């Protein structure tokens, strides 16, 4: 069972690495943010799989913080790109 979970983890890592091509090619910054979101979620799945294989519950807390940070990355970019214009016309 551990080999299967490790194999699934490697497969997900490969898939997310291929998904990063969108980060290079993405026309807009929204596409790049999507690639980062996919990388975040893929690495969460990876950490969970490796955590279960190595039977260390601490890794599940790592996955929790990773989930939180992935959300912050998205919010930070959206916040940064919507306040680029001069602040005078903010409601």
């Amino acid at each position, binding site marked *: *069972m551990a080999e*299967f*979970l490790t194999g*699934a983890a490697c*497969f*997900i890592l490969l*898939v*997310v690495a*291929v*998904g990063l*091509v*969108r980060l290079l090619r993405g*026309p*807009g*910054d*929204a*596409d790049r*943010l*999507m*690639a980062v*979101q*996919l990388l975040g*979620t*893929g690495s*969460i*799945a990876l950490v*969970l*799989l490796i955590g*279960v294989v190595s*039977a260390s*519950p601490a890794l*599940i*807390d790592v*996955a*929790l913080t990773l*989930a*939180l940070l*992935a*959300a912050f990355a*998205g*919010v930070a*970019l*959206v916040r940064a*790109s*919507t306040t*680029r*214009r001069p602040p005078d*016309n903010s*409601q």
Partner: protein
Amino acid sequence: MSALLDLWTVVLVSAGAVFYLAGTVGLLRFPDALTRLHALTKADNLGLGLVVLGLVPQVGGVIIGIKLVAVWLLVMVSGACVAQLIARLVRHGSDPAP
């Protein structure tokens, strides 16, 4: 009994991996940003959800299993919010509608 649990894990984790693949292929192949966002959220929620559900029987304690599902719920909530923000970013460009 444990063979049944192993079968459950194998089926669900591989289904989760397939959803990751489908989401990534969608992210790469779809024409414009909003359809890519649709593919991304599928991979996010369903891929991770199936992997988590597949892992629950492999984990010893009940509390750790609940923590696993908590990770999935957090990702679903944060993924939904970020997807809405990305969609607004795509729709209104860099400045939101007045």
